[in-house]
Structures are given as structure tokens and as C-alpha cells.
């Protein structure tokens, strides 16, 4: 297939693609109108259940003021981030060394290497002592 034929194929498919996009928009709108838009709020019990699924217990936990995300230290030494995903929760746990943690006044940022689990940015009124200790410990390791 030469470039001209390839471009002609795109031109031919353009109306179909535009129509498909419109149908997708209609179906998404319909899902929204039917009320499939739950707003789950994370609780400490949710984090405990997710920690249990990791074979650990919660050592410390922090839930964002909007209830949409959580950060926890687990009894097995790992850290866990949980994020509300519509009507469900997605969580990721990893050893502390496998994540990047940044604690600034009023804000916690935490990221795994995996692009499929975007970084957590959480507003904090005041960082609890365990979190400050965790971040300081990680910084010292980084410097060492």
C-alpha cells in the first residue's frame, strides 16, 4: 500500500470514526444520566481491607480531606496508596524504597515507578508524626 492509498483510507474512514466518536459520547452520556456515577469516599476500614488483601495490617493511615485517596504504612513495612476509581478503589503497595515520597508543608506527593498508577498528590492540614518520620527516613536513605 502506498502513501496515497493509506491517506485515502483515512479519508474514507474519517466519517465512520467521527460517527463512532459520537456514538461513544451518547453512550457515556446515557451511563451518566442513568446515574452510574458513584462517589465513593475512602474510610480507614477500606484501607484495612486493602491492607489485608496484601497480607498485612494497617500500621498508620492517612485519608485525604476529600476522601478520594489514602496513604498507609503497612505492618509488613510496605507503603500503600489507595485511590477511588468511580465506584471502586484501586490500591498499590510497594516497599518504601520503590517509591518517591515528597513531603512539603501542606502537601504529600508519592509516586511509584509504574505509569499505570499515577502519582498521589494529597493536601494536608498537618502531617502526622509517623509520616514526617517516614519521609525523613527516606531522605536519609537517599543521602546515604
Amino acid at each position: 500500500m502506498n502513501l496515497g492509498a493509506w491517506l485515502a483510507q483515512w479519508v474514507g474512514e474519517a466519517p465512520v470514526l467521527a460517527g463512532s466518536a459520537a456514538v461513544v459520547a451518547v453512550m457515556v452520556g446515557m451511563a451518566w444520566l442513568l446515574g452510574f456515577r458513584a462517589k465513593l469516599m475512602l474510610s480507614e476500614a477500606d484501607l484495612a481491607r486493602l491492607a489485608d488483601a496484601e497480607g498485612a495490617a494497617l500500621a498508620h493511615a492517612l485519608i485525604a480531606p476529600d476522601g478520594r485517596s489514602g496513604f498507609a504504612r503497612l505492618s509488613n513495612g510496605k507503603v500503600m496508596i489507595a485511590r477511588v476509581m468511580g465506584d471502586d478503589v484501586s490500591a498499590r503497595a510497594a516497599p518504601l524504597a520503590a517509591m518517591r515520597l515528597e513531603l512539603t508543608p501542606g502537601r504529600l506527593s508519592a509516586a511509584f515507578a509504574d505509569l499505570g498508577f499515577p502519582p498521589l498528590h494529597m493536601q494536608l492540614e498537618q502531617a502526622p508524626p509517623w509520616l514526617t518520620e517516614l519521609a525523613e527516613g527516606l531522605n536519609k536513605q537517599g543521602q546515604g
Partner: protein
Amino acid sequence: MAEPPFEIPPIITYAVPGFVLLIIVEMLYIRFFKKGGRYETKDAATSLAMGLGNRVFGIAFGGFAVLVYYAVYQFRLFDLGWTWPVLVACFFAEDLAYYWFHRIAHERRWFWASHVIHHSSQHYNLTTALRQTWTGTLGLSFIFWLPLLYIGFPPLMVLMFQAISLVYQFWIHTEVVGRMGPLEAVMNTPSHHRVHHATNPKYLDANYAGVLIIWDRLFGTFIAEDEKEKPRYGIVSQLGTFNPFRVAFHEWIGIWRDVTRAKSPRDALGFMFGPPGWSPDGSRKTSASLKAEWAARQQAAATPAE
């Protein structure tokens, strides 16, 4: 005779209105009967966007797979024409090729990087069926069908049965339909495919069938749905995003990062072609390790305490 004696309709295009109608019916059923699964607007939007993106990437790169099909067909062992026995044989051969493609797409990270997209929703409904890869052709997933061309099945016949298989697999992505009696023995059904999409350790790495479940029964990968254990859907390391671009490319970028940081060529190959979750030190979880942990827990629970 490579060309069909009849005009093959655009099977998937013709099926699309049916897909749309069934999705709407399923949404209404779940909304008004409060059973048969879950919908979430953002999740459905991502699944549908992935389906649309799959079409875009198909236009851009799908022709490459067809070219390779015709190239391999030049070296065919037999001249199999468009006769009824050949059509029946091709149906079974295509379904067998799909089984092995699908199984290896779960067992080897290179192919999983494309296929993970289809499993990335934590929901299981008809929109999940449309959550399709954007990188299948670029990831060379089509190579699993090349033996069929080499044997001598006409390329258009293989493509036709691939399309039929894809259309068949749409309706099995639902929790609305329960068990289907004697059909469960032979056909891939919603019940069998729910098991395939589940992340419960008990259900991992099972039911790779396309149309016929006989291949799983034959090759020892069949697991029946257990009414006592409801499937939990998604992937072992759930994604934390509805962003279609992150969904489409996260595993490829993960492979790239791992390979560029690998300490030896052996490790690099392991990151590319080992099982998903493989790592040189075994610190990450593979489905085999998850299953082993689960089996150990089951055994410990069954052993009476002294």
C-alpha cells in the same frame, strides 16, 4: 483459490449497531433491576475510548498484519480452496490459534503489554469487551495466526474467522447471563469468561478460549466458576487511572524502564519475555507466585492446629 467465491461483509462494522444496542439494554437492566453487574461512567468511557482508539490504530497499522499474512501465504504447503470442509477446518484452526495467542498473551510480558488493556477494568460488563489494545499489531500479536497461512488457509478466510471470533466474544462480557446448561461444556460462555477476567488467585490463568472452551479442557487450563467465590475483576496490580493513554502504554513503558535498567542481557530478556511480574530477584508478584501463596494459605487453613 485465495479469493472467496462470495463477498465477505465487513463483519465487525455490521456488528457495531448490535454492540451499541446490547450495551444500552445491559445498562437499563442493571439500572432498573439492580442486578447483573455494575457500570461506572468513567470506566465505561475509558473502555469505549479504548475501543475507538483500537479502530484508529487498526487503520494506521492493521494493514501490516494483512501484508504479512499474504507474504507467508506465498509459501503455503497446500492450496486449500474455499470449500465447506476447509471452512470448518479453518474455524477450528483459528480458534486454536486464538487459544495459544491468548494464553501466551497472559504468560509472556511482551504480549501481555498489549493484552493487559483488555483486563484493566475493575468492572465486567459489555463495554469491557470493547476495551481493546492499541498496540496489538505493533506488538506482533498476529504471528500466532501465521501457521494457518503457512498451511494454506486463504488469508481472507483467516481474517473472516478472526472477525467472527471477535464478534462472538463481545456478548460473553456480562454478569447478566448466568450459567447456560449444556452449552457450558463446549462453548465459551459468560460464566467461563468471568473466571478469565477475575483476579482471585483461584481463577488466575484460566479459560483462554475464544469461541470453544474445549481447548482449555484439552490443555488443562479450564476452571469452572464457583458460586461460592464471586470474581473480582481487573488485574493483579490494579491501575489507578482512567486515562486511555496511560492504560494503553503503561506496560510498554514499564518494560522499557526495566530493560534499560537491567543489569545483564539475561535480565533484560526476562523483563521482556518472562511472565508478567517477573523480576531477577523474585521480589515482584507473578500469577504463579500468587497462586502458590493462595494454595499455601488454603493448605494451612485446612490443616488442623496442633
